[in-house]
Structures are given as structure tokens and as C-alpha cells.
């Protein structure tokens, strides 16, 4: 295999690198832009946007484990209309494309959020987060049932004027079938994948420090899990695969590209290194000899 080119055209847009900043780990890009940390970033994926404002889960929302991080943010966000009117105008000058991560509690909510946000010209597309609980239909995550994934994807594709990716969940169900369903529903990409369900208990009290008990777990040690899932999904769908999870160095990005990812997200690493996008790109260039 020859060295993969690091710039690319994706969803009709030029990307300076395959590295995308993962949803929930870089806000809407503004803070990192001001810190000078968007150099080398292919794109920013916003935190999740829902129809109504959500204040999020009770604290503590984060819990570090020896080798990773548990998060229970609870989709805290000011709601689609506020995002449209107040946030998107403020980030229209980002030096890289913006993708909006969309969450909902019903199939309809995803479509509704997209309908509101499409009034803005700032973002290039959407990432549909089907890992959240399907409150309208019993509470299991949308993403575990391919049939529901298809319906979400179809509902979004009916209203979306821009490309969208469906961000799958690794927590139950068959991710390959869910990816195929997303594609059939009209998705322009799939993101593999959201956080793995995790938990930490204080053995002395027998209790989870995080109020919701289970949370989303991320760790650089999860890379092999993500590589396997990217490889399986990219062999099953024809739309591009965006990887999400496990990246902590340039070699990890190259490995995910080799596994079949077209774009590679980095999230938790940004907590240590807000300028990770540029660092990863430099590391990759060194490894591949690209200038």
C-alpha cells in the first residue's frame, strides 16, 4: 500500500487533513480556534444539538479511570434554535468545516433539528447520533436496531439539504447491519462509533460516582476495538466510514485509514492536547514522508 494522501475532498469540501475533532470534545470550535488549535484539523464536529435546550446530567459528569475517561454529559446544549441564531453566526469564520452532531429522543426529533439548522449556511453537514436512548419507543438506543436506524436515516434524508453521517453505537445489536441500514436510509457516511458503555464503582461504598451509573467510556486502549469495527463496516457499505475512538498518535490515524476509514476523529486526546489535530498531522507526515 502506498502512503495515503493526507489532504482530501470529502462531502464536496476540501479537508486539509483526515483528522476531525469528535463531537463533544471541542464545543463548536470557537474555543479551540482562539487557542490556535484548529491548525491541521480537517473539520470540527459540534457537540450534540437537540430540539429543546437540555441542561444535561447531574454532576459529576466526568470520571477519570486509570486508563481512560467516563463521561455522562447528557447532551447538554442550548437547543437547535439558539444554536441557529446565536452560535452558528459566531463560528462562521472557523478555518475548517463544521459538522453538526444531532441527537433526539424520537425519530421525528432528528428531522426537526435538521430542519431548523438548515436555515444556516455555516455547517457542511450533520452527524446523526443514534446512540442516545429512543425515549419515544422504550428507551433502548436507536442504534441497536437496524430497522430504527433505517427510519432515522430516512427521516433525516427527507429534510436534509446537506450530507449526513450516522454515528453508530457499539453497545449491542449488530453494527454492520446498522451501518447497512443507515446507508439504505440515505446516509452519506457512517461514523464508527460512539463511546462504549462503561462504569466505575467505588468498592468501599458499592456505588457508582456517576449518578446515571453507566456512562460512555473512552480510552486510547480501545483503538483495536475501533479498528475491528471500522474494518468490518467499511467492507459492508459503499459510503465512506468516519472512524471515532481510540486515537492518541499519528500512527493510530494511519492504522484507521488502512482499516478503511476515510476520515478519522479524535476526541479524548484533545483533553490532554487541544492542538492534537496539528500534532497528529505532523506525526503522520513524518511517518509517511509526505511534505
Amino acid at each position, binding site marked *: 500500500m502506498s502512503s495515503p494522501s493526507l489532504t482530501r475532498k470529502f462531502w464536496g469540501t476540501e479537508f486539509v487533513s483526515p483528522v476531525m475533532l469528535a463531537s*463533544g*470534545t*471541542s*464545543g463548536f470550535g470557537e*474555543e*479551540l480556534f*482562539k*487557542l*490556535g*488549535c484548529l491548525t491541521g484539523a480537517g473539520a470540527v464536529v459540534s*457537540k450534540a444539538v437537540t430540539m429543546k435546550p437540555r*441542561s*444535561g446530567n*447531574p*454532576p*459529576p*459528569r*466526568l*470520571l*477519570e479511570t*486509570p*486508563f*481512560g*475517561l467516563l*463521561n455522562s*454529559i447528557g447532551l*447538554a446544549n442550548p437547543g437547535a434554535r439558539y444554536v441557529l441564531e446565536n452560535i452558528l453566526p459566531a463560528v462562521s469564520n472557523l478555518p475548517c468545516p463544521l459538522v453538526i452532531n444531532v441527537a433526539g429522543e424520537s425519530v421525528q426529533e432528528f428531522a426537526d433539528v435538521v430542519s431548523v439548522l438548515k436555515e444556516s449556511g455555516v455547517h457542511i453537514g450533520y452527524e446523526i447520533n443514534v446512540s442516545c436512548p429512543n425515549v419515544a419507543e422504550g428507551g433502548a438506543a436507536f442504534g441497536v436496531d437496524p430497522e430504527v436506524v433505517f427510519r432515522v436515516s430516512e427521516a433525516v434524508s427527507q429534510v436534509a439539504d446537506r450530507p449526513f453521517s450516522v454515528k453508530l453505537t457499539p453497545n449491542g445489536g449488530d453494527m454492520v447491519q446498522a451501518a447497512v441500514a443507515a446507508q439504505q436510509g440515505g446516509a452519506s457516511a457512517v461514523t464508527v462509533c460512539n463511546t462504549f458503555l462503561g462504569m466505575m464503582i467505588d468498592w468501599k461504598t458499592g456505588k457508582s*460516582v456517576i449518578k446515571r451509573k453507566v456512562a460512555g467510556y*473512552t*480510552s*486510547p486502549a480501545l483503538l483495536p476495538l475501533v479498528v475491528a469495527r471500522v474494518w468490518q463496516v467499511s467492507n459492508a457499505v459503499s459510503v465512506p466510514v468516519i472512524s471515532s475512538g481510540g486515537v*492518541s498518535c499519528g500512527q493510530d490515524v494511519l492504522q484507521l485509514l488502512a482499516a478503511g476509514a476515510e476520515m478519522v476523529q479524535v476526541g*479524548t*486526546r*484533545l*483533553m*490532554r*492536547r*487541544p*492542538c492534537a489535530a496539528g500534532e497528529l498531522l505532523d506525526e503522520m507526515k513524518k511517518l509517511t514522508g509526505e511534505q
Partner: protein
Amino acid sequence: MQTAGDYVCTVLSSRQVLPGVFSVEFESPEISSVALPGQFVQVEPSPGVFPVTRRPVTINRLTESGFELLFDVVGRGTQLMARFLPGDMVRVMGPLGKGWDVDQDKTWLLIGGGLGAAGFQFLVDSVRSSGVIIGASGADRVIPVQAQTVHIVTEDGSRGSRGLVTALISEELLARADSIAVCGPVAMMEAVWNTIPEAHRSKVQVSTESRMGCGWGVCDGCSIPVSGGGYRKCCVEGPVFPGDTIDWKRWKEAGL
């Protein structure tokens, strides 16, 4: 106004000031030239990838060419930081957050419990202060603060008077202050808040702590429950808040 940056700073000195409490001085004209009292920095405790987040520490005071941190060794991150040696290069992001709402024309009363007083020196050095009350469990936990008037109170009476900080809060002290800075464990801060009569509460500012992912406002991990419902981000909307912003009940329930 974004003045923070991510810098590789040289450790200038490191010493244990109390059992398990370390003072580390970093060289960083970039950070010290823009830092304000009450702001904090995010320190990388180790090279490599673990732990996956940094450690937030308040700037205790400015030094000739940088700033000093004062921290307690409580877990893995601070254990690693206690091993910093002069000459080490450490990645530090800062200054971060909204510090004390400082107005040079005002006179401050500072009330600190335990490690909450780490950070007071910078404030004392920047404003006029009428007094500093420092509470601790015992003599070996009394954070050193250089100020004109320092009142020390320890739970075991091993230094200063015996008791809790609240015992030292008097109408006279409160009346002499235009602003009141409170920092310490949640229970201590709530007790102080409850001890201060309504009439003086609008002067109170409290410095909060929360588990942080980033420290620069992007992850929504560091929420502090506020009066009237909802949350504020400790890292960018705080760590210092007007006392009446805090929903003490929900904050205590939250735990850390």
C-alpha cells in the same frame, strides 16, 4: 478575550511546604504576564497518554519569571506532579477561567479552608486586604499566606485558635470588607455562606472545583449547579462565582 495558551514550561523549583503539599514554580512570562488572581492552569502530570486528562491547579502567586502552584498530593496525578524536578519541561495551559472579580479600590476579606487557601497569595498581592482567615484540620495543613493580618484556626487547636473558620467570622470583619473571597471544601463554603448575614452576602465570591475534562470550555464536564436550576461551567464561567449563584443543596448532592 482569549489570553490562554498551551506552553512547555520549565520547572524552576519544587519543594514540600507541608507534609504532602508541594510548591512548584514554573518559568512562564507568557502566562504570568496575563494571569489574574483566581485563575488556574491545566498541568500535564506525565508524558505519554495516561492519565488522559490534565490536572487543574490555581495559580498561588506570581514569581519573577513565572508563577507558583501549591498543591496537595491526593491521587495519581498530583503524585506525579510532586516528582517534578527543576529543569523538567512540563506542558501547562493557562491562564484559564474567570478569577476573583477584582477592583483595586476595594478591601477584601479572604476566608480559606484547607487547600482552598492555595491561590490566596496572588489575590493578597493584588488587592488591599483587611484580613485573611485560614482554617485547617491541624497545624500541618495550614497553607502559608503572607499578609498583614492572618487569622489561623485549626480543628485540633494545634495552631491558632481551635475550631472552624466560621467561628472567626464577625460582624466587624464583614463590615470592614467590600469583597469577601471564600475558597475551600463545599461543606466549608456553605457553612461560611450560611454564617454570613444576608446584608453582607452580595460581597461574597466563592471559588469552585469540579472534575474537568478540558478546562477550556469545550466538553461541558465541569458543571456547577446554580440557583434557579441549570449549571454553569466551572472552567470558563468560573471557577469564581458570586456566592448567590451557587445552588448549595444540589452542589452538595453532586459530590465531586
